[in-house]
């Protein structure tokens, strides 16, 4: 229970820090950086619910990022929906899409799961490209996303948009946090570690996986919505496989075994991206080298490394407790005989 209060306090503190940025007149570049970071951060964090917590390596997660973006953008362009209604509609659409894709994919193991999610993503991507009259094809949703006022909130105003996105972002992170610290979150770990045994404990493995897949997709969808609001458009590359790949890089760069690892990875990747784009024309080359160094040198994300050190210390303490208990038991046996 104390852990939950601490997490809530941290979430509140995070929100306050995010909200203080515009107050202190941060340059627009920083605010933009944070907005991009929140959208992609939700993509990476939600993907890690699958990869890190459940052992489901999905290569097609950006599909749900794009489905949130397009569903929201199209709903707003239709002029029939308010922003909250379109927001809800986009999440429901993403959930239904994830339910269909997930129902087909979650029974497959590892490599088949990875490739089938990739295949569905390419299918979705090609529908976006091909259905020009509806989605604008490779031009994306053109003409801007209308942002009518609702409840006195005007998202056409940059500051209000920033606050809105920050609140949505923190709520999503809090939901993910609650999820991974709940009984459900530990059932995910059971499945990740040993799904055969989890089934022998009475866990409905496919159903739990599917539930996780849908929730994760919905959070990615919110990321897509935030990005659409921010750039006032939606583009096919939101759902291209490279976007899924970037999300995996973010997880690698931060760490998959620490809750906020993917978010740290998002910041690192976007910083690297912005810096290299500014100073060189070889962005991919620099990114590739950094990732190679991380993978070959550290063999895990920096946060994972720290977490592992802490875990090793806890384990040493726990083993000392055992050794003391065993020594005590041996003495008793000797004394008794």
């Amino acid at each position, binding site marked *: 229970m104390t852990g939950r209060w601490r997490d809530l306090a941290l979430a509140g503190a995070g929100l306050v820090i995010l909200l203080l940025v515009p107050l202190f007149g941060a340059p627009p570049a920083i605010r933009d950086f944070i907005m991009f970071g929140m959208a992609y951060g939700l993509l990476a964090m939600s993907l890690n619910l699958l990869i890190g917590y459940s052992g489901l390596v999905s290569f097609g997660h950006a599909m749900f990022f794009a489905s949130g973006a397009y569903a929201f953008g199209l709903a707003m362009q239709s002029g029939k929906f308010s922003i909250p209604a379109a927001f809800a509609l986009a999440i429901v659409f993403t959930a239904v899409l994830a339910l269909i894709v997930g129902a087909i994919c979650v029974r497959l193991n590892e490599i088949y799961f990875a490739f089938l999610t990739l295949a569905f993503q390419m299918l979705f991507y090609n529908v976006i490209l091909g259905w020009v009259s509806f989605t604008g094809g490779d031009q994306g949703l053109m003409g801007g996303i209308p942002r009518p006022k609702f409840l006195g909130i005007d998202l056409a105003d940059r500051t209000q948009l920033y606050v809105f996105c920050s609140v949505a972002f923190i709520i999503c992170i809090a939901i993910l946090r609650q999820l991974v610290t709940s009984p459900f979150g530990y059932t995910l*770990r*059971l499945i990740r570690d040993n799904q055969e045994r989890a089934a022998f404990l009475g866990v409905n493995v496919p159903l739990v996986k599917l539930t996780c897949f849908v929730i994760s997709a919905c959070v990615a969808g919110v990321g897509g919505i935030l990005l659409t609001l921010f750039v006032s458009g939606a583009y096919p590359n939101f759902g291209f496989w490279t976007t899924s790949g970037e999300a995996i890089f973010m997880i690698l760069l931060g760490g998959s075994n620490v809750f906020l690892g993917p978010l740290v990875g998002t910041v690192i990747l976007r910083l690297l991206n912005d810096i290299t784009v500014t100073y060189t024309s070889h962005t991919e080359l620099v990114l590739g080298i950094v990732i190679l160094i991380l993978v070959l040198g550290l063999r895990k994300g920096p946060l994972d490394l720290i977490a592992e050190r802490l875990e090793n210390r806890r384990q040493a303490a726990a083993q000392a407790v055992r050794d003391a208990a065993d020594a005590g038991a041996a003495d008793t046996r000797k004394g008794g005989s």
Partner: protein
Amino acid sequence: MLKLEGLKKSFGGVAATRDVTLDFADGSLTAVIGPNGAGKTTLFNLITGRFPIDSGRILLGGENIAGLSRREIVRRGIGRAFQVASLFPTLTVREALAAAAQAHQRRETAMLVGFPTAAAMKHADEVMELLGLTRVAGILSRNLSHGDQKLLDIGLALALEPKVLLLDEPTAGMGPEERWRMIETVQRLWRARGMTLIFIEHDMDIVFKVAQTVRVLSYGAVLAEGTPEEVRRNPQVIEAYLGKSAHGAAEGAAA
């Protein structure tokens, strides 16, 4: 409690289980023995629904559970530990047992509360106490000693409060002293929980000392059953399993 009637199972033309009919009384402690390849583990796999049976019936308290999923069979009260401990490497002993307990309490998909729930924790503590695992509560499953891994494997099954517990070679890979400690633990929990316990065992000293009844499998069929005394004297058993030397069998030579 558990009745097997005319159980048959073949794998690609090889009959692994040939017409096995056995009755395990409520609250009994039974050893299943037999040479390697006799179909002992296969029998456990059939009872727990890991493989579908070809024909026959598996009755748990009168209800036919053949054809149900692994999960439904577990939920009806058949727990199982494995020959090679099947654990959750990245969870501590306490976490793993609490996760198993919450699955038993039908709380494994609860999202709005924190892990572990008080009820699951209490249950996990009881299991740790019963098995002597409290001293390793905070250790990750992958860092446990072999003996503690086997105990945790049993603990995971025990957390489900099974009516019937199947233990596949609980003493596998243990030294002589550790074996006896393990089997004493098994006996203790059998008495404490009053459940029907069936274990596969190769060490004849243990089998004849501990088991109330012994079932002997050979080539997928039941060769003999009875009290340890009866089985020990059964000439077929001596020939098929313990070797031709009856003298050696009397001395309890392990196969």
